């Protein structure tokens, strides 16, 4: 996935606290505006980033995010990569079920975030943590 070239240097942000989740939202918003996403698409990708950043913090024990504006020749978009070195996700299928949660949330984080973006890839394992890559393209 994620064919296309990066426009400019990706922005990196550590996710260690609550305030960092807010910073991730602002970072993604700026990138979404730069990629000329519509207002609704901006809102969707920022919301998805907020959910995933919280997952990284709560379940992954913190990590980092990389936000980039990308271009696949036809359209511009925003690519966000969340990475943590936490315990990984044991049962992916279960984790994507609406309403399923191991924490205290609503269990909409992963499944909801996937519905809000155009491309979604996840790589997880007990030995390597979790890495979620999402892309939202401008229409």
């Amino acid at each position, binding site marked *: 996935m994620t064919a296309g070239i990066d426009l400019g240097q990706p922005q990196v942000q550590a996710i260690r606290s609550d305030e960092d989740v*807010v910073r991730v939202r602002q970072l993604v918003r700026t990138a979404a505006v730069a990629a000329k996403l519509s207002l*609704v698409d901006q809102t969707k990708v*920022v*919301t998805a980033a907020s959910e995933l950043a*919280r997952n990284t913090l709560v379940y992954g024990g913190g990590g980092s995010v990389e936000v980039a504006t990308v271009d696949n020749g036809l359209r511009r978009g925003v690519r966000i990569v969340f990475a943590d070195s936490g315990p990984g996700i044991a049962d992916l299928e279960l984790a994507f079920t609406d309403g399923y949660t191991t924490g205290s949330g609503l269990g*909409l984080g992963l*499944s*909801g975030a996937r*519905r*809000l973006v155009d491309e979604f890839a996840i790589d997880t394992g007990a030995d390597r943590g979790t890495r979620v890559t999402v892309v939202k393209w401008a229409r």
Partner: protein
Amino acid sequence: MERVPILKIGDILLVSIQVDMSDQTALQLQEDLAERIVATGSHGVIIDITALDIVDSFVGRMLSTIASISKVLDAETVVVGMRPAVAITLVELGLSLNGIRTALNVERGMELIAAARADDLGHSDGVDDAGDTDVETTASP
């Protein structure tokens, strides 16, 4: 940490969220509001989210919890001013905000609370509530 101010207007508490809240700020607001409802004996809470450019599942849950808590404390909660882009995103996210009353703006939110109070007090058969009672929405899919 920032704190969201709570204003008292008549017997209604008005919360206008103007900042991009961290999760801690949201939880703090939840606590503060419960205390203020009891302290002021208010029967209505209006949460104005006009300025919020996103509502994620955490904030959504906070809104639901506030509504439930205030219900227990005999106060009606109305969430007002949700932006179209936010509403569309919430639908896609799968968040239905069950049990939360919503209105387009603060003014209509106040009408809704007044109508709900009138219902509670058994004055719902009055002539003046036409156009008010039906404005309410339960915001469930």
